């Protein structure tokens, strides 16, 4: 209802809005400040995104040649007298492979030139031939066709990494290798296919034979040990400290120290692992068990802190409700608090494990950067891990390892993305609304 006895308030200096010089200037300054803050924020985000794109772009570009592998088709003849059908494993397969290479170039007969043609094929070719014969002894005395990996220089030449137009003293393949390469291409004996070796083989001195299988299994066992140690310990410690521990000076000291532990540089944990687990306990070097124990020390504070903050976020009213109905403190925690905190606990654990997966420094100190050519068959067999494998490959002089290092980085990043995505998914999925 509009009261008729009211008149509109008189407006000073016309219009009602403050229009004095000072207030206009103040308004302009405020808008300018808003714009500056907005622009700074957008700029910061743009810089961060730009850096991320540069990083990913350079790694992906650098890895591009690692995903394919050049192979050479050989027609291998297994002389009946060269392989014992009873024991096909033991035979001089290297000379059989060499012979099949010489057969491709009947016109080349000087030992010097034969050495060049031999170097076209990876030294691992003999093992492929051997495995083929062992799997099928019928082949003894016959000739069959097989694709074997090309040696790294030929692989790089084929992919264009090595520029054939450079003067001979500035490229790592010589003219006779290029000649032989051209003859193979003309003969349709070269092909490029997806580099499965990258995932099916363990480490090797030869890039074309090197793969991540050992590192992947090593990282798997590492994370398994880390999880088995740090998940139950971390959660139990967090629940005790958050829900049951008396609040006194002693628990304050524990709390401060756990938080400090999270900030200790990881290489210190490696030193501790070396000094305690290896020197005092006498555990072997380079094994995932020791690596996992060291990484658990690092993951533990992360899990404890994440679990405690998840427990803190459970509303006290839920605890009151359960206690008020006669649930014991333990029942209150196990029936109500933990289920509600579980998404946070799992997220924290996965993020802790993702950190552990990418950790390199402590593993170097306990010898998990050794050159190991077989995938580990348990947590007590020596192995590498993904980050240390990247470190080893990065250190290798062969051209083929440059791209493979980047490929390994992409594999590692891929696992980290998957783990973090899992954490987000679990958080969304298990979240209970109240």
């Amino acid at each position: 209802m509009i009261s008729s006895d009211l008149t509109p308030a008189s407006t000073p200096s016309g219009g009602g809005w403050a229009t004095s010089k000072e207030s206009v200037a103040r308004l302009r300054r405020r808008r300018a400040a808003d714009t500056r803050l907005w622009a700074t924020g957008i700029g910061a985000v743009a810089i961060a995104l730009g850096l991320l794109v540069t990083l990913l772009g350079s790694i992906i570009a650098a890895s591009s040649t690692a995903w394919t592998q050049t192979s050479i088709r050989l027609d291998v003849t297994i002389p009946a007298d060269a392989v014992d059908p009873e024991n096909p494993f033991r035979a001089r397969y290297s000379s059989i492979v060499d012979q099949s290479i010489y057969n491709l170039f009947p016109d080349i007969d000087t030992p010097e030139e034969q050495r060049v043609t031999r170097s076209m094929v990876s030294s691992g070719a003999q093992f492929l031939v051997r495995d083929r014969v062992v799997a099928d002894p019928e082949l003894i005395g016959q000739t069959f066709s097989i694709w074997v990996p090309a040696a790294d220089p030929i692989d790089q030449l084929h992919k264009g990494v090595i520029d054939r137009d450079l003067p001979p003293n500035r490229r790592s393949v010589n003219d006779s290798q290029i000649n032989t390469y051209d003859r193979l291409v003309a003969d349709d004996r070269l092909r490029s296919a997806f580099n499965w070796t990258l995932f099916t083989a363990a480490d090797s001195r030869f890039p074309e034979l090197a793969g991540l299988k050992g590192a992947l299994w090593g990282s798997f066992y590492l994370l398994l040990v880390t999880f088995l140690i740090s998940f139950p310990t971390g959660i139990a410690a967090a629940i005790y400290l958050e829900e049951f521990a008396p609040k006194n000076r002693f628990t304050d000291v524990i709390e401060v120290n756990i938080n400090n532990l999270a900030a200790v540089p990881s290489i210190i944990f490696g030193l501790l692992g070396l000094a305690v687990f290896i020197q005092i306990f006498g555990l072997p070097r380079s094994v995932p068990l020791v690596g996992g124990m060291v990484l658990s020390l690092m993951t533990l504070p992360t899990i404890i802190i994440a679990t405690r903050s998840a427990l803190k976020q459970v509303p006290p009213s839920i605890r009151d409700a359960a206690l008020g109905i006669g649930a014991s403190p333990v029942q209150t925690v196990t029936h109500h608090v933990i289920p509600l905190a579980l998404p946070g606990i799992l997220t924290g654990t996965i993020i802790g494990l993702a950190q552990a997966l990418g950790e390199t420094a402590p593993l170097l100190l306990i010898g998990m950067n050794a050159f190991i050519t077989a995938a580990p068959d348990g947590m007590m067999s020596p192995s590498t891990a993904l980050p240390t494998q990247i470190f080893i490959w990065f250190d290798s002089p062969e051209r083929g390892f440059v791209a493979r290092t980047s490929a390994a980085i992409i594999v590692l990043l891929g696992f980290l993305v998957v783990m973090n995505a899992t954490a987000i998914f679990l958080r969304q999925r298990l979240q209970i609304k109240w």
Partner: protein
Amino acid sequence: MVAAQPVSTLASSTDKATEAIAGNARSVKVAARGVNLWYGDMQALFDVNIDIAANEVTSFIGASGCGKSTFLRCFNRMNDTIPICRIKGDIRLDGNDINDKSIDVVQLRARVGMVFQKPNPFPKTIYDNVAYGPRIHGLAGNKSELDEIVENSLKGAGLWEEVRDRLGQPGNGLSGGQQQRLCIARAIAVSPEVILMDEPCSALDPIATARIEELIDELREDFTIVIVTHNMQQAGRVSQRTAFFHLGKLIEFGPTEKLFTNPNQSMTQDYITGRFG
């Protein structure tokens, strides 16, 4: 229900408390004598004596911070969860000292249920909310017994007709008033003798409040109810006896009608007429 031990034999019995129950044939359910309580160095309750009668509604009123909720939480030892809280004095439920070392707090809370200020159903189904207490106390031998307890509790809380078709849905999906009745159903599912209510309507609208008040009156038949309220009209409507607290002291305790119309203490008079509080 008759008190196992006559109140007059309690050693710490004081004049004020005996006066409060003088000439009254009510049976005493909970008797508190000389209750002092400290939060760290701060004393929150000073020598409180009170007798809570069985099958009555007793309301605690007083200004914020006067200790009425703190005192209420002494009855089921919810203050145990506060590490810095210290209690001296004697609180007896049917003559048994509830702070005695031999008393398991879990059993005490099964006999003295509680409803909180804000509805706090578990983030579970309606059924599981009510069934939780009977489950942990082993009150039901099988599923059909449990179903019966759940049904009777929801009926007791006046919620059954509204939720009978959606027992499997989350308790948080109910309206505020329904949630609070669900909490009452959850409390009565373990068949307590006393129900403590800590400002049960302060988060509810007037209609939901009226519903809860009606319910409190019905529940009086089977339970002894102690309710803390900020709303003096509510105390007047639902309770038979009212206790007025001020700064941790019990100022006056008596029949609600008398306390609101003709209080003995001038401070009570000042409070109920709105001169402070």
